[in-house]
């Protein structure tokens, strides 16, 4: 399980109040997602690289995570240059790639990597549980936070259940292949997981009822804003607004 891989550490970003990090991460992502001016995006790239540097994470691990993101982006490169209308750049057989298509694919690649890097540096440096608590102090609806907590808590349990079922298949000499037997067995595996999680949800509800649950869920932890949190919040907000002004004000 990869949850909380980056959460242990002692860098400035690890110690920063999670509420500050969430606010900055959200604003940063929105601006980057909407922006299309190179000056703004270039600043964003510099900013997220600086954040990554401040978080002092293992660059190898970060690179591995980026690979996952870019695996999806490869598909965009397969289609976008050839389907977007515009000036012809080069052609492969009967397919014409357009200049606009290539630029568009490039923009998406830069934007998603920039956002993911910033999110890793800002959000992955706090344990998921802490982020949940921070969200609740930022007035995110209770139900969504409960969903987050239950997901975190039972992802592990379901993952173990999946491993157990997989092992049970393996010790009876199951070798996946391209055949009906494999498809059917995997369908059983997924079906079994669904049923088991349904049953588990029912048992958890019962256990909660037994402890007097009647719809209200209480949180225990609280955060205190330190001076360094306020300073960092101001600096980062200034940088993000500077970035936004490059997009919308200057060069108009």
């Amino acid at each position: 399980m990869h949850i909380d891989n980056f959460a242990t550490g002692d860098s400035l970003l690890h110690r920063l109040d999670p509420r500050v990090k969430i606010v900055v991460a959200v604003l940063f992502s929105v601006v980057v997602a909407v922006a299309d001016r190179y000056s703004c995006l270039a600043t964003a790239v510099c900013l997220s690289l600086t954040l990554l540097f401040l978080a002092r994470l293992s660059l190898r691990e970060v690179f591995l995570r980026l690979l996952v993101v870019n695996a999806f982006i490869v598909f965009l490169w397969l289609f976008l240059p050839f389907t977007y209308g515009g000036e012809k750049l080069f052609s492969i057989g009967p397919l014409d790639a357009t200049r606009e298509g290539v630029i568009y694919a490039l923009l998406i690649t830069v934007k998603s990597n920039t956002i993911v890097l910033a999110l890793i540096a800002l959000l992955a440096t706090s344990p998921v549980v802490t982020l949940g608590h921070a969200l609740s102090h930022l007035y995110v609806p209770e139900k969504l936070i409960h969903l987050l907590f239950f997901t975190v808590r039972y992802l592990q349990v379901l993952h173990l259940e999946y491993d157990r079922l997989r092992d049970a298949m393996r010790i009876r000499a199951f070798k996946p292949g391209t055949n009906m037997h494999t498809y059917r067995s995997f369908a059983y595996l997924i079906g079994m997981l669904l049923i088991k999680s349904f049953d588990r949800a029912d048992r958890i509800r019962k256990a909660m009822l037994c402890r007097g649950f009647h719809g209200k869920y209480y949180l225990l932890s609280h955060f205190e804003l330190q001076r360094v949190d306020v300073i960092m919040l101001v600096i980062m907000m200034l940088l993000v607004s500077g970035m936004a002004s490059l997009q919308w004000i200057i060069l108009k």
Partner: protein
Amino acid sequence: MDNSEVIISLKGLSFTYHDNKSHRPVLNDLNLQISRGERVGLIGANGSGKTTLFHLLMGLLRQTAGTIEVFGEERRKEKDFREVREKIGLLFQDSDDQLFCPTVAEDVAFGPLNLGNSQEEALAITREVLKRLGLEGFEDRLTYKLSGGEKRLISLATVLAMKPEVLILDEPTTGLDEDTVERLTEILRGSDLTYLIASHNRDFLSKTTDIIYRLGRGKLTSPVS
């Protein structure tokens, strides 16, 4: 028994599981009385209905026939069972069902908060219960990273934190190593609670209970010696 106030009384209790096609009677005209201070053990084959009996008692399932009287009142509706759940604590077979909060402190405090305690009170209770079970320092541990034995003991803490008058333990020793079973035995022997334990572990039952019933064919049969 010097103090013979009956706190749980089951009369003619029957329960049948209705699947699509089949009817599977699990409990059939079962009778049981438990007095304050009694420590009762329950043995029975897998699927004999021990868990079903507990879930009926907590109002998680509804009986097909018979009456359930707890603390001198008959309990029928969901509302009647709310009070039952505040005074009877049930330890589930699988601790992963019981521990659902991210951290240990939040999980232990969950019950007390539901009972209307303030945050400070709930935290104080949490610390006190964890200390009593020899689990100091577990407050900020993540529940999904605990070992099997730790999970069971923390689950017990979550139940004890509600200060129940009766404790029901559903196969508490399953999957535990000898040391943890030993610890559990000590905790139970040291408490003055009324309790009911279902287990396959005869040795554990004989150490922790005064009387052991056998559940079979939907009925309880006379004490096993």
